[in-house]
């Protein structure tokens, strides 16, 4: 019963995440950017613009200029999340490559850093009056969800261990459409339930910034308007009908 419920839950969550995010990315890619609007000074080549976006994605370079506290907490959270995800990859691959073996302890430290950084972000959100003003219920809930995921994961590790071999068998089984039993430990089920919830929320929430950052015209456009004529399809149509 538990196994079937969670199997279906994860199929559904994965489908919603991939389809929802995919549809959003397609929509962004298809929507034209009619005018040249890079925030200048901007790179004058496509490669330069790609590097600029890479800097935003990997280092949060604009945020670094903006506010060192938000940068520190935000960047620490994202890097920690990446390490935690890498650590979790072992549940989905067999055999486990050496690099994933190597990353395991870092993933564990990162779990603490992740929860700490999220707590820091939440404290700022409540403590700084300007941030309090712009914060809505969903902002609190998103932080609560992420912290709960981190905390329940740590609880499984340190307080309520589960049979991780069976968990791995469950996920490998899901991927091979050959269901294996999932241990019915409450903490594990909470952890998985919250993760599935996060996956479902992703395409409908502010988590879309993960896709948006790649499509931001102020960052990804090279600064070449005098050398190249940019014309959106609807603008070209306008030009034809106006003449």
């Amino acid at each position, binding site marked *: 019963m538990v196994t079937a419920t969670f199997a279906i839950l994860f199929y559904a969550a994965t489908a919603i995440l991939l389809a929802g995010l995919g549809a959003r990315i397609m*929509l*962004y890619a298809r*929507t*034209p*950017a*009619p*005018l*040249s*609007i890079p*925030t*200048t*000074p*901007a*790179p*004058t080549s496509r490669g330069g613009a790609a590097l600029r976006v890479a800097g*935003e994605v990997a280092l*949060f370079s*604009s*945020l670094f*200029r*903006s*506010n060192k506290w*938000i940068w520190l907490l*935000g960047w620490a959270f994202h890097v920690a999340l990446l390490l935690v995800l890498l650590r979790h990859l072992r549940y989905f691959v067999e055999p486990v490559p050496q690099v994933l073996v190597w990353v395991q302890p870092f993933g564990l430290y990162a779990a603490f850093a992740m929860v700490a950084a999220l707590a820091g972000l939440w404290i700022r*959100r409540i403590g700084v*009056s*300007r*941030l309090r*003003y*712009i914060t*809505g*219920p*969903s*902002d609190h*809930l998103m932080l609560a969800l992420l912290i709960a995921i981190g905390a329940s994961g740590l609880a499984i590790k340190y307080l309520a261990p589960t049979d991780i071999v069976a968990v791995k068998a469950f996920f490998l089984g899901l991927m091979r459409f050959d269901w294996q039993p999932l241990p019915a430990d409450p903490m594990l089920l909470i952890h998985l339930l919250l993760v599935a919830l996060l996956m479902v929320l992703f395409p*409908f*929430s*502010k988590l*879309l*910034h993960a896709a*948006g*950052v790649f*499509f*931001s*015209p*102020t960052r990804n456009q090279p*600064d070449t*308007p*005098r*050398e*190249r*004529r*940019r*014309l*959106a399809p*609807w*603008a070209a149509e*306008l030009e034809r009908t*106006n*003449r």
Partner: protein
Amino acid sequence: MSKKEFDIPAVPKDSEALFTPEPKPDATASVRSYPASAQHQEALGFPGEIPDDWQDRALAHFETLLERSRSLRVYLDSCVRCGACTDKCHYYLGTGDPKNMPVARQDLMRDVYRRHFTPAGRNFPGLVRGRELTREVMDEWFTYFHQCSQCRRCSVYCPYGIDTAEISMAAREILDVAGFGQKYVNEILGKVHKIGNNLGLPGPALEDTLEGLEEDLRDETGLDVKIPLDVEGADILLVTPSADFFAEPHVDGLMGYAKVFHQAGLSWTLSSHAAEAGNFGMFIGNYEQMKKVAERIREAALKLKVKRIVVGECGHAWRVAYSFWNTLAGIGHGADENDEYARALQNQLDPNYPVPQHICELTYDLMQRGVLKFDPTANDHIGLTFHDSCNVARASRMGDKPGGQMEIPRALLRASVRNFHDMADSTIGDATFCCGGGGGLLTDELMEIRVKGALPRVNALRETMEEHGVTHMAAICAICKAQFTKVLPYYDLPMDTIVSLHQMVGNALRLDRGEI
């Protein structure tokens, strides 16, 4: 207008002490633009009265804009409310009204977007702050999207590059389409269409004005420095903000350009048909209006058969010219061979020069080539600093390299004035603070927000005045010049503190052609 109508913010003695204010909700809720009259609305094809179905029209146009513009869609989706922008807007720093924090200003639109265009907002409006587009919301949009100067400072600091200017332009266009237009901008757009410039200065009056200026130049220099108008076959068409024709200190800039052209022996002309570089179509985010205004320059260039197009000192105009003209009207280079519309003009233009070219680029190039010589002692009575105009700094370029828009004006000023000092780093370059009057806010009923929005700039200016003996501040934007002339007196600084860049150039330029 009395200076006692609102409290003038105090400029801190120690400039470091300009701290971020605590949010004071609704501090500027009552500072509102005048609504456009039916006549001004209809001239632009917008409804003259607010129609019964205004909400349907607004939402339908909202959807059209979402389909037309990637930036709008991505920026409405992507904000995580991290707070990085909350202390970056000069209007927030000057007023403390939390709706002047960029994220909160965007949220006025984002909340409506969620409610009407996203599943989360349709189903859980309470959770994600979805907000029905009511009359009250439209009024709030009208107020606060006309307290944004579209300066893009917030965009520099946003981790996703979210540009509030894109949001406020879209919001204003939706307001216009639903019958909630703003008088100042729409009235001026009507004048451009009807007469050819923002000030409504007709051709014959312009001719008289230019003759008067030529006389002034003759009196000053003893030389026959011309300001030609409508000369067919001239090499260069100069398109400049119409304020350059008579406002102070703008007109001193225009005379500076004339001296540069004269000394370099260039063949140039103004056009009575395109006697306006400004393009207020950008302020209301309306592509069609922006295109219509830009096409006047195209038409003039074709008619006068010029080879080059040069733009005078104007911030938003330079953004439109540099970034948009090629798209809007084919004014630029690099159009496809089969792009007949753009090719009709581009085949006529000289490929050896950038099109459009900024007057500062032109002067700088001549200086580099040794065609122009400067005697900076002519400006020894002046201690100068430079105000980077937002649209030049953050939405355009000069020269070949990124950042040229900061370096080239300074190179000209350093050649022209010996005592030049920059203001604090965090207030110049792409971090520059808006003058407080850009983006369609340069109207008297918004004086409170204009004065308060100038606080961060005035603060940095006063510091250089006290520490480096700066007496004047040069700008390359007609709106900046007009705004500072008006608001600096509120801070007990003389109105003529603000000068044109080419006024400094004109003072220092050696007009002794024989020696070259």
